[in-house]
């Protein structure tokens, strides 16, 4: 069995099974978990509106903090947008989703996706350097952050290497196998680390808004 056969077969199968199992475990466990019980009377009444408002307000920087977090905020947006392009608008990736989900959508030309991938890698490196050097970021960073950074940048880099295999001098099928294996690592890590924010980010912000409404705080 070649590296690519292993990657497209057992590795992909088991990593997807672990990811799906883990995501459902954490989502169901989290949503069914009974939160903090407040014994006082609620001070607000519009809980849904407050939850939705907090999702929106937390999605751009507070004007009082804008100057200090500008770089992190906008490079974060840039990274997520370009990563979205790479994952969901590259034709080979769309074919993967078609195989997995049974439906597909239009993609972008390869050159456009390659540019997006380069921006993704550059932004991730810049954010990584900031995380490693900024005292505040350093103090709130743990192994989970670095592992999540690594399994995210890994597939993008290996994917670009596979695309440029002629210049690198490594056989395409080997690089494609390594790329798929790096994606398998990402799949396995998604439910168990901070990458789970892709599912919990907005529910979390909603919940914060709801709780603040309960206490009569506008946020």
């Amino acid at each position, binding site marked *: 069995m070649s590296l690519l056969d292993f990657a*497209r077969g057992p590795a*992909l199968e088991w990593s*997807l099974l672990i990811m799906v199992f883990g995501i459902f475990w954490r989502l*169901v466990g989290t949503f069914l*978990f009974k939160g903090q019980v407040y014994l006082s009377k609620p001070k607000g009444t519009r809980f849904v509106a407050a939850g939705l408002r907090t999702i929106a307000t937390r999605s751009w920087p507070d004007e009082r903090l804008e100057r200090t977090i500008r770089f992190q905020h906008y490079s974060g947006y840039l990274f997520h947008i370009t990563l979205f392009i790479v994952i969901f608008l590259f034709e080979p990736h769309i074919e993967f989703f078609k*195989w997995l989900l049974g439906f597909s959508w239009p993609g972008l*030309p390869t*050159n456009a996706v390659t540019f997006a991938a380069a921006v993704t890698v550059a932004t991730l490196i810049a954010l990584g350097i900031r995380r490693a050097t900024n005292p505040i970021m350093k103090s709130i960073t743990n192994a989970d952050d670095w592992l999540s950074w690594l399994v995210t940048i890994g597939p993008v880099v290996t994917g670009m290497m596979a695309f440029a295999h002629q210049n690198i001098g490594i*056989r395409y099928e080997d690089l494609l196998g390594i790329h798929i294996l790096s994606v398998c690592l990402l799949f396995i890590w998604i439910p168990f680390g901070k990458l789970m924010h892709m599912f919990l980010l907005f529910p979390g912000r909603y919940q914060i808004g709801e709780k603040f409404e309960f206490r009569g705080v506008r946020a």
Partner: protein
Amino acid sequence: MASNMTLGESLRRRGVSRRGFLKFCAATASMMALPPGSVPALAAALEKARRPSVIWLSFQECTGCAESITRADAPTLEGLIFDYISLDYQHTLMAAAGDAAEAAREAAMHENAGKYLVIVDGSIPVKDDGIYSTIAGMTNLQILKDTAKDAAAIISLGSCAAFGGIPKANPNPTGAVAVSDIVKDKPIINVPGCPPIPVVITGVIAQYLAFGTLPELDVHGRPKAFFGQNIHDRCYRRPFYERGLFAETFDDEGAKAGWCLWKLGCKGPITYNACAVTKWNFGTSFPIQAGHGCIGCSEPDFWDKGGFYEPLAAGTYAPGAGLVSAAAVGVAVGVGSAVLARNSQKALHKEGA
């Protein structure tokens, strides 16, 4: 039997001009990625080359490889080169049969010990002592070991001989293996393909005749000159891949416009062969040009690499049921976790109260 006539003498007797011979040498050198300066050396060496004895063994095969090499609707110089070798044993082409055929093989082996070439097409069954394919009462396994013993080199012709091919495909009922799984002490050149490209084998034989050496091989034992680049990198449809223009079905507008066949399962990106360069039928066309994706027939285990019509981005298994089961187990464990957590919360509240 191998004669003492040189190639130059043989070609002149057949009416091939010096100019025609040099053109063949130039084309062969070009195909084999030899420098232009090597053409005179190739011509001089081929001119003086002696007729080698070749024993062609056909095992678990469909005769497609022999068809590929021998079918020609016009005589070519490659054909003459091929005629030039002393083909002392080949089931399909030889006139002798039965004991006489086997005697010819044994005589060729005896008279040319250490110098003859062996061409093998077809895989070798080894399960149950190799009884699933026999010739003249001998298993393919016995014949191969016996014939390879005094060979100068072996050419595994076609994917079955090179890698086990279709007979080795899951579930491999005969225990089929490649030549290289059995013969370990002889130089082996794999010329895979289902079937292989005729010009590749004539190129390999021409190099052996001219220089007495075998070509540089890749990781799978294939001549780098022909198997050094993948089909995708040499495909004339590659620009459409870069632009994201793909045929979605075999008869849609994209297919009619000649767009890339990657989405239709083309295995060109992981297949190393010369199809896109030399093409087939005297350079007329090749599968992708004819509108069908490459099936990767020159790669090991090509039959078991997932569906021919599944793109490379797809896994090689059906994901549906497994993922639904994983989700169901995840939900069950999630519910269980939540129940345990709530019970802990209740207990804490009671303690607090």
